[in-house]
């Protein structure tokens, strides 16, 4: 699409300023940040999915980085940078879950498109191995209710692509703790989505 859709320079300054303010303790800055980042991520993701970018990217991580490059003044110090990603992770999750829901609606409703064999397969038993993102979102909410920190670590890892070191910094815990948190969280999510069928048959 038109290239002009990139945010104006003022927006770059705006996000950077808000990040700094938020870091300085201004809670409202956070509230204002969210829609700005959401819009940008949504736009990038949508562009990608409509095929207009010829598949710019496969990774939410890369999307978030791309958004970062567009939204934030590159001279921002690292702590601000990490904060951006910390915010963007949650936002990215919302963007993707919304996308997944939209897509599901399109698939279910309409009926314009004849169902292909592949679609049928998707609804079949294989489905448990390929869960929908909206299912994962529910799982994450459940995990959050039990252990908010672990859910947050998952968000940072999967939706913003932070390294374990960076996650440790954001959450103010040690790196081994991050690793353990992620391991348990992953097993828990995996089990929530597709309960282990007892011992594997191999």
């Amino acid at each position, binding site marked *: 699409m038109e290239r002009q859709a990139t945010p104006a320079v003022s927006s770059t300054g705006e996000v950077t300023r808000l990040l700094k303010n938020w870091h300085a303790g201004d809670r409202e800055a956070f509230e204002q940040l969210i829609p700005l980042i959401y819009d940008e991520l949504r736009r990038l993701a949508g562009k990608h999915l409509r095929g207009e970018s010829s598949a710019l990217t496969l990774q939410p991580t890369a999307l978030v980085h791309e958004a970062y490059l567009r939204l934030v003044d590159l001279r921002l110090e690292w702590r601000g940078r990490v904060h951006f990603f910390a915010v963007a992770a949650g936002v990215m999750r919302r963007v993707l879950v919304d996308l997944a829901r939209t897509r599901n609606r399109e698939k279910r409703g309409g009926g314009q498109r004849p169902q292909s064999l592949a679609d049928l397969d998707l609804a079949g038993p294989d489905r448990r191995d390929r869960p929908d993102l909206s299912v994962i979102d529910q799982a994450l909410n459940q995990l959050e209710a039990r252990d908010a920190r672990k859910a947050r670590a998952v968000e940072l890892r999967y939706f913003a692509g932070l390294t374990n070191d960076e996650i440790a910094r954001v959450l103010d815990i040690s790196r081994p703790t991050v690793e353990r948190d992620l391991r348990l969280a992953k097993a828990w999510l995996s089990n929530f989505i597709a*309960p*282990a069928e007892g011992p594997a048959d191999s």
Partner: protein
Amino acid sequence: MESSARRWARLERLFHGALDLPEARRSAYLDRECSEPALRADLEALLASDRRTTDPLATAIDDLLLPSGDSSTPTSTEASEDSVLGQKGPYRLLEKIGQGGLGTVYLAERVDGQFQRQVAIKVVRRGLMSEGLIEDLRSERQILAHLEHPNIARLYDGGTDSRGRPFLTMEYVDGLAIDLFCRTLPQEKRLSLFLDVCSAVSYAHRNLIIHRDIKPSNILVSAEGIAKLLDFGIASPVTAGRSIRHNDPEPSLNPLAGQDPRPAFTPDYASPEQAAGEPLTTATDIYSIGVVLYRLISGQPPYLLGSTADPETIAESLRTSPVEPPSIAARKAGQPTWKTLRGDLDAIVGKAMSVQPQQRYGSVQELADDIRNHLQNRPVAARANRWSYRASKFLRRHRAAVSAATVMLGALAFGLLATLQSQQQAQAARITAERHLADLTREQKRSDRMIESFVDTFRLADPGEARGETITVRELIDRSVQGMTTAQSVDPELSARLALTFGKVYLNLGSPGQAQELFERSLTYFEPHLSADHSIPWQARSLVAETLVDQGKSDQAVEQLEQDLLRYHREVGTNGIGLARLTHTLGVAKLHLDDPKTAAQLFRQAISLYDDTLDSRVTQGSTATSSLEVAESHHRLAQALLRLGELEDAEQRLQQVLEFRRHELGSTHPSTVTALGDLAALALYRGRDEQAAELYEQVLARHRTVFGSHHPHVAVALQNLATAEKHLGRLDSAKQHLVEAVALRRQLHHEAHPAVADALYALARFVHQQRNFDEAELLYQQVLEQRRLSLGDQHPRVALALLGLADVEWSRGQLQNAEQLYRQVIARLEASSSHRTVDASFAYYQLGLLLLRDHRWQEAAERLSTALQLMQQYLGVDHPTTAKAREALAQCRDRLSDPAASEAGRADTGDQ
């Protein structure tokens, strides 16, 4: 009610606690730590999920963001005009910069001018688009996405172009291949660059990724001198020490056919196991960086295989052709620096490039540490710390003494041979005498005199007296011992030393009682005459304890050893060979007392004590320690680890022990064969039947050369070989071996010996599985009779023979008979309190299934629940039979619509 937060905290603690243990020990851990069934079920589900390789979250995100085939893009007509050298997404391809097995790499830049950045783009090669290759590229992306390291080229993103062709964009490294870059560098700089590479590879390994294609052209160095590892195109994740890849290597091979199941590799840098298409571990990368190191320091390749030869030939030549040390290669090439490579660097490269993966460095980190050691002039592990290296050093230093002993031995053995009853005894005598003569030589500085005296002793035994009659080794030794007593007045010290030596001979001949007497006799002399810190009396004390273990008095041995250890600490100190021996022997006793954990700890201590003494002896030039003793500690440690379920470590050690003994003692020496047998058992245990069968065949062949065909060891090997063969489907040969084992047992023992019945039982089970029910029934009945005879009617093993008969009835469809027999078996087992065993679990299970078929749900559920509980404990939750029992139980509970059904059957929700 327990708060959910507390429950979660417990779950978390137990989850990580279990993960810290090897898989085999988790179930026992949970038994101990978690008594609450619901929590336990949750934990097991979590652990099972943890074992999965798929990451549902990553997959879901991928599914969402990967434009699938159906979302055909409106711009596709326009895009189809793209040439290969055109646009990939927002990137413009500038030039082709590389060609790999999977794809082509282009230099590219962003077209929107947003960011000034050049990237490398990798595309699947034209005409090669296939599911497999797309999957490869996808897996490379997933692998790279998780790797962030200053010395690994970063992944920016990836995608599919307008025609659905996948591509990756990566950090573009404008640099030279590392070998070219190093040409102009001084050696220290080369090594420090190499250390950066190690750090990258080590990082990948920590993330469970094997690169599998490390070579100079995949390591580029930028103008700023930063090395970057590239091309994870054929990298693969590693699980449980093995690499998994979509294509398991199979024997068919033609790398050009495109269908070759053998993954691609670069012959000049591939490890032998890689060329052979075997499963790979991180050791393959260690080999390859070894070759890179060779190249960097010597400027020469270790060998040139090219790519013309077929993989078989390459693998063969990698395994058999010796490699010149880099220093020699450098000298031949006229490099002035060749001398600096001698010693440390030769050894480091040699260790990294060992043909056997187990002999390489355990990790890239260790290799890097050794290079740092070299750079800082500290001793290098590749040279100093390996006990086999020390051992060969030792032997080289004492060549004279050892060969004197060997010559003596030859004469002795030939002399004896003529008069012995059987060759078997001669072999045993030769082996025992050989070992102890060697010991004798080592323990005694005046070895020549010692040998002379030994000969004298035999003279005293007066072989002439035996002329014309058959004399056994045993008699010969008994006479020698008598003669020794006579000689005591002449030289009491010598006499005490000989008592020690002959004690060892008795120990090995299986007469621990007589051995003990001799050891104690030697002690009565040594105690007053030698200083408190002399190693010989301490050795005698260890040996006394060993005889106690051999006589089944391990408790007593532990008691004695603990006192000895206290005394040693008081009178001698905290190191020394004596302490090493006491510690080792205590380990042996603990192992016998079924405490492998403590035993392992003790063996580790013993090894490090031995190592310390080897170090100090090297400088003092004394000769007290035999490396064979260290090998024994390693062997015992491996046995303990085996019991603890630490199979990897056990296997590695056994390999080392085997290698070492082969080298030092020869391949037919009983100690060597014992190690081989343990390895075979390990392979069988781990389900590597092919390997197990092969090893057992070797064991069998060697036992036969040493013991002849009539020895219990041979029977054991036959039975185990049959088990492996059965798994492999080689049924004829399995049966033949089982029949042989039965025949051999009958020859070796009297008919009522339990071993005969055991061999019969193994045959019966086999025949039963082959569905020869009549033959099986006959055999089970024989087993039953013999066990009744030898063990008494009430013995639980009698019940097991009945279990066999019950199974036969079941197989024949005689369900009423079967049910009755199962009930008998259970009644017998419960009467003898042997119902909490794995064998009992089968009786409960079978009876449960029978009842299930008959719709007697209530009792079926009870029986199956008992079975399941036992199976989980003994077979593990993962065992297929455990799973079947769980399923059957869930079925019962469903029928009973028991309120507990939903919980117990939760795992089965997927089924109808």
